[in-house]
């Protein structure tokens, strides 16, 4: 709190980015965790909440007659323009936010103060939801070829690796340690994914310290061991995901890539994915395109092309496709690395796994995938996503790119994923929100030292609890598509990849029609479920009533019929007699609302977003359709024709309109 110079500024205007004329007048609050803007408009009092950790840049612009403009760019691609009347206030807000947006200690992060009012047990259970040892079991490990190694116990060999790793059975501790000394940051080859059907595997490591001529017997033995763990193939692919030029440059620094002559039976392959600095700049350029107000066709297409973003996405996809094909079609194991083996390697391994294994296309499987290839293998979340104040050159949208790859795949295979776009967007949000402990720090070791699991909550448990929100209604377990490998054309088809406006423009008013189809279907599904529950509840009640009735008739057998009925409606006024009664009762029915009582401050939305996201849902409310049948809540069903209602609406509207 000591960083907040001024907790409240009145008469601030929030500028609507699209129509510069319209600006909402309200009050700006600074809290320890959020920036909050509350509109003055008495009927709405619309609130806009921004987490400090989401703030990417703050820009103070030249003071104008109307006040001092402050531009806040967020990591979730929201853009806020405030106009503060007094220059002094503006400066105070600016200075405060600069500090608040850049915490220096982990303890300042939101997750350490975030309290969803779960008890200890619930929290612990939440952390147990995703269990990597279970995942390796699911893959079929350990087996004759692969075993769990304790060589990295207490992070003795590599401090950015997890303690539990799978390695080939024939790789002794001596070989592993020897190999680790020949690899950048001692990140030796370890198993990422094992393809049960044909024993082929995906292993990952960092670059070898080969320089121009250095060799390491243990490292060569290590690769040999990986090859031997796949009896079906007599060679392995070594995939260096960097552009060849970059890899060659590394040789001068005593690093580099494997020499095919030194390693027996490897096939070496470069796949040119650019480094984190190129990616950071590329995103920056693309976001500039996103910020254009109603761009013309050429603004958009040229801007998008010049950003190179989709080209980079495609490079990652191509690498994933190459590996998936090698594993599933050729049955050849692959060793993947880049420089340190924690950025591009993580992207590529997880894309390949996603293509290969339908399990990762389920909700839980996807969490496992991130846990495995990103969290446990030491992807540097803190550095890449700037959770703590640090070197801005370390920041890069590495996992964002992976998430986008998943979305691109979802677009190409709309029925193959159990989860929907929203799931991806929420994960992206939480990478930056620092609200949960999972995606914090640079390594497993750091998280352990911080006792993250004791002090924070798990994102996975939170997402799992709300899973109803994230289901893709088009997904079916029994699909041929949901089984087996996803096959994409490998020829250069740039047109397969498109701009993800659902992510980068998600705070714009434009809606994403296709996705709203999904939303629409989900609403229908929910509705059906709710009605199901209501029906059950009603049937139960009916049964009860009938019992009571039976008793009544037994006791008061002589009573006349009408009075019997009236006796009922007074004694049990929850009986649904008319639609009105019925809807009044609805709230008391068991409801499976996933977000009820949930303190998730996750997505800070402006009301415009609420509006723009729902047209598909609302638009159909007066139609004669199956959907409408659902919304016709009459318990008597048959008599209440859906068209009646809508017909009336139509007429009255018409009348109003004509007189207007």
């Amino acid at each position, binding site marked *: 709190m000591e960083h907040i110079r001024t907790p409240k500024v009145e008469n601030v205007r929030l500028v609507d980015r699209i129509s510069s004329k319209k600006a909402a007048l309200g009050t700006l609050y600074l809290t320890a965790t959020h920036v909050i803007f509350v509109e003055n408009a008495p009927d709405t009092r619309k609130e806009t909440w921004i987490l400090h950790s989401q703030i990417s840049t703050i820009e103070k612009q030249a003071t104008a007659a109307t006040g001092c403009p402050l531009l806040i760019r967020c990591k979730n691609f929201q853009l806020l323009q405030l106009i503060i009347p007094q220059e002094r206030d503006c400066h105070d807000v600016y200075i405060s936010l600069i500090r608040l947006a850049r915490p220096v200690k982990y303890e300042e992060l939101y997750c350490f103060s975030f309290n969803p009012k779960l008890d200890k047990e619930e929290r612990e259970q939440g952390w147990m939801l995703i269990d990597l040892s279970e995942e390796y079991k699911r893959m079929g490990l350990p087996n004759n070829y692969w075993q769990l190694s304790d060589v990295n116990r207490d992070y003795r060999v590599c401090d950015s690796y997890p303690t539990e790793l799978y390695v080939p059975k024939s790789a002794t501790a001596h070989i592993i340690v020897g190999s680790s000394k020949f690899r950048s940051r001692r990140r030796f080859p370890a198993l990422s994914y094992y393809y049960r059907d044909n024993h082929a595997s995906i292993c990952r490591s960092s670059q070898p310290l080969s320089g121009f001529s250095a060799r390491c017997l243990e490292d060569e033995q290590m690769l040999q061991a990986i090859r031997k763990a796949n009896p079906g193939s007599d060679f392995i692919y070594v995939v260096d995901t960097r552009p060849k030029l970059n890899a060659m440059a590394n040789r001068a620094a005593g690093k580099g890539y494997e020499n095919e002559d030194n390693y027996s039976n490897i096939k070496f392959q470069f796949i040119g994915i650019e480094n984190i600095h190129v990616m950071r700049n590329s995103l920056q350029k693309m976001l500039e395109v996103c910020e254009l107000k109603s761009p013309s066709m050429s603004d958009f*297409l*040229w801007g998008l092309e010049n950003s190179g973003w989709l080209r980079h996405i495609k490079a990652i996809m191509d690498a994933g496709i190459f590996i998936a094909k090698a594993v599933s079609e050729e049955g050849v194991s692959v060793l993947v690395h880049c420089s340190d083996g924690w950025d591009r390697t993580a992207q590529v391994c997880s894309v390949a796994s996603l293509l290969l294994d339908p399990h990762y296309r389920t909700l839980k499987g996807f969490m496992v995938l991130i846990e495995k290839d990103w969290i446990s293998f030491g992807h540097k979340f803190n550095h890449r996503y700037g959770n703590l104040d640090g070197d801005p050159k370390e920041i890069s949208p590495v996992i964002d790119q992976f998430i986008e790859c998943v979305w691109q795949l979802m677009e190409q295979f709309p029925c193959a994923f159990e989860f929907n776009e929203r799931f991806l967007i929420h994960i992206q949000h939480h990478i930056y929100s620092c609200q949960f402990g999972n995606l914090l720090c640079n390594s497993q070791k750091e998280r352990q030292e911080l006792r993250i699991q004791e002090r924070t909550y798990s994102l996975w448990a939170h997402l799992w609890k709300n899973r109803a929100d994230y289901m893709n209604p088009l997904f079916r377990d029994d699909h041929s598509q949901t089984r087996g490998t996803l096959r994409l054309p490998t020829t250069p088809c740039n047109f397969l990849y498109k701009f993800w406006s659902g992510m980068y423009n998600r705070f714009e008013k434009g809606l994403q029609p296709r996705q709203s189809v999904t939303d629409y279907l989900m609403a229908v599904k929910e509705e059906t479920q709710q009605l199901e529950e209501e029906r059950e509840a009603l049937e139960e009640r009916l049964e009860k009533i009938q019992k009571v009735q039976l008793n009544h008739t037994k006791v008061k057998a002589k009573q006349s019929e009408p009075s019997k009925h009236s006796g009922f409606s007074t004694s049990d006024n929850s009986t649904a007699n008319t639609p009105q009664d019925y809807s009044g009762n609805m709230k008391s029915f068991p409801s499976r609302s996933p977000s009820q009582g949930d303190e998730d401050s996750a997505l800070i939305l402006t009301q415009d977003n609420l509006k723009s996201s729902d047209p598909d*849902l609302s638009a159909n409310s007066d139609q004669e359709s199956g959907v409408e049948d659902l919304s016709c809540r009459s318990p008597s069903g048959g008599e209440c024709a859906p068209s009646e209602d809508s017909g009336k609406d139509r007429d009255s509207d018409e009348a109003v309109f004509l007189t207007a």
Partner: protein
Amino acid sequence: MFSLKPPRPTFRSYLLPPPQTDDKINSEPKIKKLEPVLLPGEIVVNEVNFVRKCIATDTSQYDLWGKLICSNFKISFITDDPMPLQKFHYRNLLLGEHDVPLTCIEQIVTVNDHKRKQKVLGPNQKLKFNPTELIIYCKDFRIVRFRFDESGPESAKKVCLAIAHYSQPTDLQLLFAFEYVGKKYHNSANNINGIPSGGGSGAGGGSSQKTPLFETYSDWDREIKRTGASAWRVCSINEGYMISTCLPEYFVVPSSLADQDLKIFSHSFVGRRMPFWCWSHSNGSALVRMALIKDVLQQRKIDQRICNAITKSHPQRSDVYKSDLDKTLPNIQEIQAAFVKLKHLCVDEPFEETEEKWLSSLENTRWLEYVRAFLKHAAELVYVLESKRLSVVLQEEEGRDLSCMVASLVQVMLDPHFRTITGFQSLIQKEWVMAGYQFLDRCNHLKRSEKESPLFLLFLDATWQLLEQYPAAFEFSETYLAILYDSTHISLFGTFLFNSPHQRVKQSTEFAISKNIQLGDEKGLKFPSVWDWSLQFTAKDRTLFHNPLYIGKSTPCVQNGSVKAFKRTKKGYSSTLRGMPASLKNGIVTDQDLVPRRNSLILKGKPEPLPQPGGQARGAEQYLREWFSRPVDLHGALLPHVSGTHVKLWKLCYFRWVPEAQISLGGFITAFHRLSLLADEVDVLRRTLRQHRAGPPEARCPEPDQSRMYFRVGGPQAAGTPEFLSSSFPFSPVGNLCRRSISGTPLSKFLSGAKIWLSTETLANED
């Protein structure tokens, strides 16, 4: 009089060769059995045996052997071999799997790879070498290749020349449709009343309604009533095309204009195309089309009179808003140029070359920019009609090109009726066919390229953009739009054959006289209508036209032969706007509000109608902005997003023949499949429910035997995603030899310099 029965195809299945009864023939070489399937009036002009059709791009192992014939309707390749690699192909009843209608041919290239020669064949040209290969470039973006390595060199040459000759006829009456219809008339003279109907029996579209053709007084009259345009009347001064040969016989004018005045005014308009009505908004604002007034002296006066009359026909006597399309929109030559570039990019250019520059190459075609320009302009006119409540007059020199497109788009946006299949078809009849869009010239059926322009495709593309943005607002699917585009290349339907209704009457009367056909009371021959979809597709295949997401307002009811007056919900958005209680808990907007979930389909409150600001100073931009901030009523006005982010490339249409672009078991079709199953299930349940409710089956509403959906619950494909689904479905890129094929064969080197799709001169490098 002739009956209105739709003609029935008179041929057998293409899958099997005609059954041979004579055993002797069976012992003959296999190739003898390969007989083409011909339509009435169709004759084989030339044929060659032992032809190889190339299938795959990089190998000849899948190539098919068979016979190549040229008829007066199509190129047909007949083979016994099953098509390899192909998982699915929708069947057009008029065409075999390997057939290309002559009117679909864009360019014919003959090649002799021994002599390293090639030639683009024009009509009546000579060929100085024996071709070893024939490459057909089609207007629908396909490229088909045949090899003559094993066939007789002379017959191969003859077939190539025949194809070149017959695909580039010198006269309209040489198009196959005339022969076909003539034959039908002759046949029917012997039979009872088997004349082909000109009308679109809407059963084709799958809906029970018939598509009004707007050839008659009553169709226009009904349209006036449907839109509630009270101060407008049908005018019949052009009966017999006495005034203008490029206007329909009947059209609609302000009631206050007398026939006599119109006749006088007509002389001052280009093509004597006086203003005629398209559509009226329920607020009374009308949409009117008009050619330029060429008479400079009279210009002001006539213009004033017309505007006054339109104002008088407006219930509020509002002013007229004029939109000069020639000044604001790209012209037809620019659109054609964009299309040529687009085609080149999508079909011709090696992917490797465009890889880095794909987006800028796409931008360079300008195609998407033009789609956007038309959408944007139409949206602005929607603002004028709906919000400013002014009548709009579309002005264009001849009023036969851009006006068709703009008028149609405005109506698709404003009137949900035109988003149904029948409605959309009637719109095309009204604004394109009857309004004198020059299909003959623009589709270039006679291969005189100077007037060619793909404006109609541009309209389908723009409609697709709307469909893409509002997937539940249209009764038809994108497959329907693509097939509609393909139908413009089949010279059988009168719909897309002529430059004007008058041309049909004139040309077909001449033809009838020359062929001794008795026309009786009829004005010209009745050609089959494209709206009679049963001519092209089976009932099952036609269900692919249906969009499973579409929810009809109410089943269109035809009672006593007349369409019930259509009522639009006005201010749809306000009636569906639901209360917006942001469920704020500690000021936290929870995830659930991203999309309202609980009770999301239930109206929570009924907000008051939108206040109409008195001033008219609000700009179109602000109108659009406000419109977008409200929930959409899919049965009200629909406005497109027109920022660069939202206008997309119609991949199904432009990439369906590119093998590399095909995603097996992927693409939107997989979602379409699931949604179809869902929609079918809802249909089945609703039917069951209705039966329960009504007891015995109702007499007035016979249950359709057939599902609306192509994919059905309990059908063979219900269990999982059918294996044949791909992003190109229902089209199959197998056998399309595009770019990579050319660069992958020895031929590549000498073809690589050629610019296919470009003008003939650049390619005619024989000798």
